[in-house]
């Protein structure tokens, strides 16, 4: 095997300050993840951050729960431009909360979660390229299918599936526990595949 071949990862220009971080010892964070901002970033046990995921804490504190998977090209804590007019009254300031992911949240490729006390509930999957606006509250075990746009300040009840440009239905399959187990298995595999380098961000 040609072990000489290396991954092509063009250097990332490090924009802005290095944020204070609080990592659990069991997390997996890729070397090429991007952490920036001034407010603290907390990542709880066994969460996985893929390469090129971007976590921006300039709009407030970012908290990632247990066993979350943040895929590549995700932006957590994006400063929303579209929603600045309709942002709720808890406008992001210095010590505010920007984004909170509860446990077992999966954020898929290219999704964007805006800053402004945005909350994603336990076991929710945010699909590829979705956008969750500032201050939105997404309930537990929801599924946001790809390219879903959740408006700033809106709320999504528990077990909702958002699909087809904003149509909603309730997930009555009752597979929440199984899905969580599946995520745990996936994390077991990812921990072996993604070279983790938490010390880079300390």
């Amino acid at each position, binding site marked *: 095997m040609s072990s000489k071949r*290396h*991954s*092509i990862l063009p250097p990332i220009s490090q924009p802005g300050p290095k944020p204070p971080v609080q990592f659990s010892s069991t997390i997996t964070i890729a070397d090429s993840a991007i952490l920036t901002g001034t407010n603290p970033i907390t990542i709880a046990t066994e969460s996985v951050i893929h*390469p090129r995921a971007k976590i921006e804490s300039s709009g407030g504190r970012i908290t990632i729960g247990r066993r979350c998977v943040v895929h590549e090209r995700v932006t957590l804590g994006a400063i929303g431009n579209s929603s600045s007019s309709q942002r709720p009254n808890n406008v992001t300031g210095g010590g505010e909360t920007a984004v909170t992911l509860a446990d077992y949240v999966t954020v898929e490729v290219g999704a964007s979660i805006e800053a402004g006390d945005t909350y994603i509930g336990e076991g929710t999957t945010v699909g*590829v390229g979705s956008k969750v606006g500032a201050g939105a509250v997404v309930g537990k075990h929801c599924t946001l299918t*790809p*390219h879903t746009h959740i408006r700033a300040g809106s709320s999504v009840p528990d077990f909702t599936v958002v699909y*087809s440009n904003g149509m909603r239905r309730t997930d009555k399959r009752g597979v929440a526990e199984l899905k969580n187990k599946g995520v745990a298995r996936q994390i077991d595999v990812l921990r072996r595949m993604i070279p983790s380098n938490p010390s880079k961000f300390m």
Partner: protein
Amino acid sequence: MSRRPPRGEYIETDTGNKVARKATLVGTQNIMLGGKTVIQPEVMIRGDLVRSIQSSSTSSSGGATPNNTAVAIGRYCFLSRGACLRPPGRLYKGAFTYMPLRMGDHVFVGPGSVIQAASIGSHVYIGARVVVGEFAILKDYVRVLDGTVIPPNMVVPSFTIVAGQPARVIGEVPEGGHEAFELRDLYKTVGNNPHPAPA
């Protein structure tokens, strides 16, 4: 860094692949390019997500060496700016594993598309901002219009046009229309000394 003075935007390999220097390829040793494939800047390919469970004697594909290909791409494929290819993953016999992503020849992937298919046939056109869900199968001569979301596990038959969110079959490729899928000319228009597109 480079001893050769002209340092082009693309790396051109002996087999004719043109890989942009600004592309993000993770786990390159598990990515197979068939030749004459164009990878534009900001493309991301996740070759590090390899299969973690080898299939038992049923397929016997590996033989002595385990087959570790995560992403296999055929000839004359064109991956536009910002596209992302990643192998699909699922639970198999109680354990999680990624499965290889296979792509045929003359596959065009539009800008910003995310592909997590199990297999894509030959002469497939995928538009811009398309999402192909995990373990979807696209057969030969399929046209996927811009902004389509192909749900996981969908099988798209040959010579169909799909669009929508979720994707639905909206038409067929007309007779004789399959020549539009040729990507040889498009291949020549990019690279370090590109030829202009034919009129």
